[in-house]
């Protein structure tokens, strides 16, 4: 019940945040120089054709009227027409968002599993060669942008070794499974299309790893640091003194509380994957939402820009709520604090 109340309260606050975001992005996208319709139709299109499209998109109306049309459409699930793909933005989102979600989910899994694992091992064996190696990896991972990894992997595993495919979500000879979720791996799994599943996973390796490495290094660093600190605390010594088995000490008394800061960062890192995937998607010709969003901004595709920012905003809000719930689950002090504050 308390959890439901917490979630409801956060959701209510989020509505105001998203409303503010929608006004901000609506205004910002419209004050940039250049006529978006003229850009879309080209410099030689007759003025009446340009005017027709302006009218269709309500761009001939004052800003507040445009916003009213946009908001009322959005509330009914109509985010308008894209100037460049020439179809409803909602169709674009349905096509491109699952591709990026799929990539981000795989990258997120890699980030979480290997980040925590490396951090835990480094923390447990702090100041040994294992710790030093993980620390070096972490620093390199944190400071290197994901597109650098993408190019390196592309050239190493795609160009020199030729182990992995370099572009797209499926090979030319593999028919695409019917779109149920839009995520090729999941659709292939649901339909039992094993060839497509294997091929899709095989296409996923390089982009997902490239995308995950930065966050993975970050999680490893934070987990290592917290574990290393907690390892010196009295309650660990007491647990050992009472003869609690080492495995239980490590997993229950050390790792679980040490994951609180990691979980907070992990959630935000995951949400950031969606926005930061642009260059990775570009390099691996991955038809994703992030690439779509950046292209929309470069082309001043007004409805698409607003939609992309709003979707990312919603993802951030949801992830933040989830992170708070996870952290509360991991740390009883937060739960108790919330109850006392009630």
């Amino acid at each position: 019940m308390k959890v439901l109340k917490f979630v409801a309260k956060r959701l209510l606050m989020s509505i105001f945040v998203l409303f503010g975001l929608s006004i901000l992005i609506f205004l910002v996208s419209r004050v940039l120089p250049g006529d978006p319709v003229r850009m879309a139709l080209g410099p030689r299109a007759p003025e009446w054709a340009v005017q027709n499209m302006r009218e269709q998109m309500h761009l001939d109306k004052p800003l507040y009227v445009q916003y009213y049309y946009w908001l009322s459409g959005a509330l009914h699930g109509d985010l308008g027409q894209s100037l460049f793909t020439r179809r409803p933005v909602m169709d674009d989102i349905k096509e491109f968002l699952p591709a990026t979600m799929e990539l981000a989910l795989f990258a997120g899994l890699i980030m979480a599993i290997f980040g925590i694992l490396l951090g835990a091992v480094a923390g447990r064996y702090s100041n040994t060669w294992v710790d030093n190696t993980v620390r070096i990896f972490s620093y390199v991972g944190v400071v290197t942008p994901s597109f650098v990894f993408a190019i390196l992997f592309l050239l190493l595993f795609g160009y020199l070794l030729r182990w992995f495919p370099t572009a797209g979500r499926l090979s030319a000879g593999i028919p695409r499974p019917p779109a149920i979720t839009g995520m090729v791996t999941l659709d292939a799994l649901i339909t039992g299309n094993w060839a497509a599943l294997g091929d899709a996973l095989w296409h996923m390796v390089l982009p997902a790893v490239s995308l995950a490495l930065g966050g993975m290094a970050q999680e490893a660093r934070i987990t290592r640091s917290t574990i290393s600190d907690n390892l010196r605390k009295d309650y660990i010594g007491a647990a050992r003194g009472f003869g609690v088995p080492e495995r239980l000490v490590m997993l229950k008394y050390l790792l679980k509380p040490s994951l609180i800061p990691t979980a907070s960062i992990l959630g935000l890192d995951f949400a950031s994957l969606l926005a930061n995937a642009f260059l990775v998607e570009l390099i691996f010709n991955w038809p994703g939402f992030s690439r779509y969003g950046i292209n929309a901004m470069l082309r001043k595709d007004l409805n698409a820009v607003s939609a992309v920012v709003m979707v990312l905003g919603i993802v951030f809000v949801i992830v933040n709520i989830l992170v708070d719930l996870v952290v509360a689950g991991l740390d009883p002090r937060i739960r108790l604090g919330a109850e006392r504050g009630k």
Partner: protein
Amino acid sequence: MRKLIFLAFLCLSIVGFGAIGLADGDRVLRVSFSWPTYIDPAVGSDYSSSASFVNLYDTLVYPDVDGSPLPHVARSWETSEDGLVWTFHLRDDVLFHDGTPLTAEDVKFSMDRITTIGEGYGFLFVGRVQKTEVVDDYTVRFHLSQPFGPFLTTLYRLYILNKDLVEANIKRPGPYGDMGDYGKEFLLTHDAGSGPYMVKEFRVEEELVMVKNPNYWLPLDPETPDEVRFIGTTEPATIRTMMARRELEISDQWQPQEAWQALDAIEGVDIASFYAGTEFYLMINTKKPPTDDVHFRRAMAWAMDYQTVVDHIFPGSIQARGPIPQNIPGADPNVFQFQRDLDKAREELKKSKYYDQLDQLEVEFHWIAEVPDEEKVALLFMANMAEIGINVKVVKVPWMSVVEEMAQLETSPHIVSVFDSSHYPEAGSLLESRYHSSSAPTWEQNEWLLDPTLDAMIEDALATVDRKERFAKYAEIQEYIVDLCPTIFLFEQVEKHAYQSAYVDWPTARGEVNPVMGYNMAARFIKVYPEKRQELLGG
């Protein structure tokens, strides 16, 4: 141990999928392009869209490599004496992809559709084609509102749609009244053509897959590709990797200089370079002091170091001669060409009314932020002008802002550097779009010539139906323009594509360059040899 074996198996399986993909004998042509690609002939007009039209649709006339029209769907044609009525006699053996015959009704529908929508290449016909008349099943007649000599060459852009198929897929209501959306939604991902290739799959922002039309009315060489894929990426590292893995047959033209060298180093890959009719102009505002003085403009033209630009900044390009690229029909090969000569530059500058105020004047040079190499040209220009005492301020401006600046005389800078090309393969196209008063408020003209004499000359040339006579008039106009020196005609851009010379026979790479954008990507002229590809792959 079991876990280890499972992991090893998993890794091997993943790597093993490397074998999946194309079968050895697949005759496929893959070309990289920058997106968006529109396959609706009334919507797209960029490079990749044009290349897709050429493969999916047929036209009444087809451009020869010298730009002149050859019969295609139209067996023959005739023009009225006043140049207002053009009659075309169609072949009766052309079938659409669904097997229905192509008739005059389809031609009329296609013209009506493109002029109603007004997008894409519609600007070539809007206001010019007054009416399209179906004389009989295989005769169609266009009535023009004014004589227009290059009309035949604009018909390279009238792609003929299957009327019945489009009408059956119209979505109502739509912005075009009774015609609803005029089939725009359907044609976003489907074709309605009769061309040598048909759409198999179209994934927006990702890939266009076309397969050979088995019933094409012209013979297709068996070595032409069975499948053509236009892939939406121009990322240099990706292109390089795909070319090396033989997963791409022809690259896009947007690769940076260092990428061409890397691509050329790949065994079996060569670089095809040709001049496709794009020129780089330094557009000078002729209404703003001090560039309103012709002597001042000529001094700048004499002082410019053209050789450094073509040798080092845009290697492979050639110095432009006048306003029209030399491969465009109607370009004057004898028009005067400025060369760097500082003595002549100083001499001209002395004649300028601003000669005594040079230290107080500043010329603003705006270059396009999205094209980094333009900065090098701007800085070279600044250094060259400093040698004769002209102060230049170099300003980096995003393209969208440049377009806004150039929309009004008051905000147009002294000089803007811009690439431009003709809309149809004739000099008249660029002469009109670059120098006629009607184009002054667009990004195609920063010169603001607003010269009634020049306007009349251009209008007269365009109204001349006789090709030879028209070309003679084009030459006069070019001389007139060069004499005014409203532009520094810097260079003709070289278009480069990396291609798999070891297993692809591409006529364009052999020098058979078509001056009409997109026609060099007509897959029916390109031969692919998969067995040679296999040899390269070591299979």
